[in-house]
């Protein structure tokens, strides 16, 4: 599957929006690996939290074009970039400026068929967490987990019965611990779909679901 075209961005755009990197590409590869499962489930509603450039949701739209694509980001440049990338690649995406999925409130309760989050996972001082600028794309605080840990309590409530949740982690986030926690507290099964070493980053894409795949 082709990668979304990003020629509508200039170097200057990447001062404000996270430029697709190894983590993004691993997520694309993992989605492609799951293409069979995704078309089997026939997802209707997809939501990417922290959509940045919009590359990931656009790619999902290539793999499975028969869904409604929503995205959220707290960075206004990123929300605009997401819409632009979707538009230039023929995938209509509706982004909102929002913290996680809060702008949707209870309306998305158990409605999301594919949920995607590539969180700011880099270990940084806590004080760097919480901006709405480009730092929001990577600053993850203690263990790189601070932002993810804020989102974790909302995941199960968003996922539909057949829903899949894709998460990007690095080894500092202790992915095995996250997987155990999600099973124990929320009853969600998980599987590591793909791993890759990129420089110092030990990346893994984990897929969570209510039923075992």
């Amino acid at each position: 599957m082709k990668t979304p075209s990003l020629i509508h961005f200039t170097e200057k755009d990447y001062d404000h929006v996270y430029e697709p990197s190894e983590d993004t590409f691993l997520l694309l590869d993992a989605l492609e690996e799951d293409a069979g499962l995704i078309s089997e489930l026939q997802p209707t509603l997809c939501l990417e939290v922290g959509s940045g450039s919009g590359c990931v949701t656009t790619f999902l739209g290539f793999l499975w074009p028969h869904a409604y694509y929503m995205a959220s980001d707290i960075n206004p440049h990123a929300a605009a970039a997401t819409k632009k990338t979707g538009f230039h690649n023929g995938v209509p995406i509706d982004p909102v400026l929002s913290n996680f999925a809060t702008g949707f409130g209870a309306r998305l309760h158990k409605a999301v068929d594919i949920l995607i989050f590539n969180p700011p996972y880099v270990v940084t001082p806590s004080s760097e967490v919480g901006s709405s600028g480009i730092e929001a794309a990577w600053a993850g605080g203690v263990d790189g987990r601070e932002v993810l840990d804020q989102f974790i309590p909302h995941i199960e409530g968003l996922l539909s019965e057949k829903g899949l949740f894709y998460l990007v982690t690095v080894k500092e986030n202790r992915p095995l611990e996250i997987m155990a926690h999600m099973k124990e507290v929320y009853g969600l099964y998980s599987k590591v779909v793909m791993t890759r070493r990129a420089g110092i980053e030990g990346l893994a894409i984990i897929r969570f679901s209510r039923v075992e795949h």
Partner: protein
Amino acid sequence: MLMCHVKGCATDNFPLRIEDAELEQVEVEFNEDFMRRMINKIEWGAFVQTAFALGVDQLPATVPENIDTEFLQRIHRVAMETKLKEGKMICNGCKHVYPVTDGIPNMLLQETEV
């Protein structure tokens, strides 16, 4: 789809009322199977109310029992092809205003409102 999430705002907060709306028609490929699935995800009452308030369409109060292609195309036009480009979304409960700029609703709250 969007609702008010101001802390303590729990009544009459959906659907948000839209004011100063500037609508935009976009072209999206129609897919019948998708629209049939999508209808089940739509909060029908709120959808009908908003479409009527914006002068987009006057839809039946309940989803018809036998949904034909023509009806699905009509829903497609309203739900997928009619976009709010500019405007304000206002909560009837707490009067909070969420601006929409360039097709993107700003649902972020000030720290005091969270």
